[in-house]
């Protein structure tokens, strides 16, 4: 007969983690001059929902479409290039918006972010094309 041992790690995790989470919540509540707790809560929950209800379904559908439309040898390179382009584009959003520019500080945000993003995406797709070509050639030989 084996004795079922109750796992200890979840308890340790809760004992250590919950006070830190509470510190964050209590901290916000006590800092309402600088942070409106409700506004912040909306942003945190909103970030979660934006991922779960918008970004994730979109990615899953796109991944499935790529799986149906493209030949097996190039699927993975195309998926990688699409995902990497999307990550770069997401990061670029506030830079492209340009709302942070300040006429009296020309050294701030002083790049052409649109051209830079397109250039980076072009390099990503060129790498993916190289990867796809190598795979196709290998498959034909093999």
């Amino acid at each position, binding site marked *: 007969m084996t004795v079922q041992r109750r*796992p200890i*790690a*979840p*308890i340790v*995790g*809760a004992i*250590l*983690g*919950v006070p*830190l*989470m509470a*510190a*964050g*919540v209590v*901290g*916000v509540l006590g*800092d309402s001059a*600088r*942070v409106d707790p409700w*506004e*912040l809560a909306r*942003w*945190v*929950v*909103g*970030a*979660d929902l*934006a*991922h*779960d209800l918008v*970004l*994730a379904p979109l990615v*899953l559908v796109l991944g499935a479409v790529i799986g149906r439309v493209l030949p097996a040898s190039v699927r*993975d390179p195309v998926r*990688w290039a699409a*995902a*990497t382009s999307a*990550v*770069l584009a*997401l*990061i*670029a959003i*506030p830079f492209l*918006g340009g*709302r*942070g520019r*300040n006429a*009296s*500080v020309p*050294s*701030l*945000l*002083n790049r052409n*972010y649109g*051209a*830079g*993003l397109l250039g*980076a995406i072009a390099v*990503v797709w060129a*790498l993916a094309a190289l990867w796809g070509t190598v795979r196709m050639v290998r498959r034909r030989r093999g």
Partner: protein
Amino acid sequence: MKQPAVLRRLSAVPRSDLHDRRLAALVGSALGVAFALCFATGLLSHLIQEPPGWFDWVSRPAGLYRITQGLHVVTGFVSIPLLLAKLWIVVPKLIEWPPARSVAQAFERLSLLPLVGGGLFLVVSGTFNVARTYPWQFLFPAAHYWVAWLTIGALIVHLGAKWAVIRSSLGSPDGGRADVLEPRRRQFLAGVGATAATVFVAVAGSTVGPLSRLSVLAQRRPGVGPQGLPVNKSAVGARVVDAATSTDYRLVVEGKVAHRLELTLSELAKLPQRTAELPLACVEGWSTSAVWTGVPLRDLLDMAGAAPDAEVRVESLQPRGSYRVADVSATHANDRDTLLALRLNDEELHLDHGYPVRLIGPNRPGVLQTKWVARLVVT
């Protein structure tokens, strides 16, 4: 409770076999290291800027803060693809039915909301801050700081809850080699690594000079700005142009001193000058080294007859702003390279770099290197 029809249909859709425990544990480990590094460096930066009594930040090595804060910002950016990859791997759990089988599991799953929402908020708000874009009312540093505690707490809860699964899926005796899925996992990991490397190159140029040309999403080019140095706040933006260029300008040293000092710019220039190469390191991650010349703060304190362990509150001509005032601890005040600088790269300070006098010291965040200094209050 019955499983909703839409969830039943979704769970019947054929899915990639890469929504897999071992892969989740592998990517999760990398993400955990990135978040831990971000948390540690971010907490350090917070302690330096709002020091509690027990915390005395060292003034050496001079470039330490430049490294820790550069790491903070770059690691934050690089964790974006890691976080999105991790969420993709575990996404089928979102539609798992029933949502929880026990109270403990319900608690564990609820803690995913602050973990995922908090993690996403941290990288999104950090990115927007680097781009100086604020589509919210709250103060960014405060909100980012409190959510970091929430997120790291939720991460520890999550780690504890998943400990057994993580250990068993990472610790297979053959390192997963016998598993038919392992080559595809390796390919996925290589892909995530390549994306993370791409993001690194795209943003790191603000800190890592040689990458600057390739960093198409960097906030700055190091070396671009008046006198070859970037500027955060201009004299016009800080509304100090008239006061800073006035012939009535005096640097005042007062507070706990034997004799109050009032020095004109030319009197300051006649005092013994010291030159030091020091980095200007912004909390937003960019940094550049420059050569500064001026009067050591300690010399002025000695002239005024301040105590050897004196601390100093440095006030700017700025009429307002969160960084109008900065405190200098005794450790920093007694470092010979903590200067009231009059010159930058052997030229008179540019108005945007704090003319007539700016504070510059080793190992301090840029926001504590007060520009347009008007008053030193010894405490």
